[in-house]
């Protein structure tokens, strides 16, 4: 059981590192021009939407991982 928890912790950490890489790679280069003072705002909104989608995907993966690692324990 305990090794499962340590494994889940490690998997969460790995997902944070990989997720960070995806966020930097995807969101970093996004810049908008042609809207004047709104450039900054529009770019921020696009970044926010992408980040939220990534976080939702991250939670879904984590949820599947949880069910896989703790299959027996969750169905107590």
């Amino acid at each position, binding site marked *: *059981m*305990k090794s*499962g*928890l*340590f494994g*889940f*912790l*490690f998997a*969460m*950490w790995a997902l*944070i*590192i990989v997720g*960070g*890489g995806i*966020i*930097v*790679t995807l*969101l*970093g280069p996004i810049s908008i021009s042609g809207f004047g003072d709104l450039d*900054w*705002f529009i770019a*921020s*909104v696009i*970044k*926010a939407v992408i*980040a939220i989608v990534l976080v939702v995907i991250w939670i879904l993966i*984590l*949820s599947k991982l*949880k069910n896989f690692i*703790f299959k*027996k*324990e*969750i169905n*107590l």
Partner: protein
Amino acid sequence: MIDLLIPAIISCIVAFLVVFVMTPPLIKILEKRNFAVKDMNKKEDVMVVRPGGPAIITGIIASEIVLYAFLQMNEILAIVITTTAAFLIGYVDDRKVMGGWFKPVALAIAAIPIIALGAYDSDLAFPLFGTVQIPALYFALIIFMIPITGNTINSIDVLNGVASGFMVIASFSLSICLFIVQNYEIAIVSLPLGFVSLAFYKYHKIPSKIFPGDSGALTLGAMYGSIAIVGGVEIIAAVALLPAVINSFLFLSSVKRIVEHREIKGKPVDHTEDFRLKATNDRKAPVTLVRLILAGGPMTEKQVGFAIFKLAIFSGVLAIITAFMMGVTL
């Protein structure tokens, strides 16, 4: 770095001593006023006083005032105001039964001083991959971070000594990480959190003489979140907090809504005849970290507490590795 040594030492001594000295009289005052609850994990009818929050917040404010006298940083003010607001929110919840949404919403408002005082950097730093500029999204991150860390520490406060012991490990790990990323001033500002938690652990460890209550747990969690933001170590802080995050994640993914613990139907954990803790078969009960630890078989309260501390040390090591990875860019 050397000139920071004296304020660091004085503030750590003040943080530890204030809580260490103030908690016994606080226990007596709370006993006189009969502010006590039954310790559910003891065979006998043991009553334990709460909340210990007033001692914790006094230690934090006193030590941070010492640091402010030396360093005069806006970041210290932001941490103190947000943490004090979190204490007040917790204290209201200790005294009155509030709805499930009260704490998250109120804690989100408590995060505003960090924004108002400009005590943040909107670049989010990730290990190996560098930073990303997310100015608008970062405001949302600040607003969400304080309720998350506050409630996460509050949700792990289920056994004698766990919340304070866990905070000792997580906050010292975070301080080490801040030194590694060479953010020395915030590292020193963060040290009192560990010493306050350590002094409170003396009275909170099994068998508890006092419980931190919502005011204590939210104070510790909100200060941790504030340090993460003003120190620019949000990701590292999240890693050091992972066992508590897992607890909240398991709870929310099984309950599927934000609720107070008292609203939960079904018991995740029960007692054996010799009063060891055991996981129940109740399908209505939420999945929690303690329930998963106990899935391997019954354990004493002390054994479960140490199992959580081992997980905290493991994630503390992962946080330190992450801090070293911050200096490397692929």
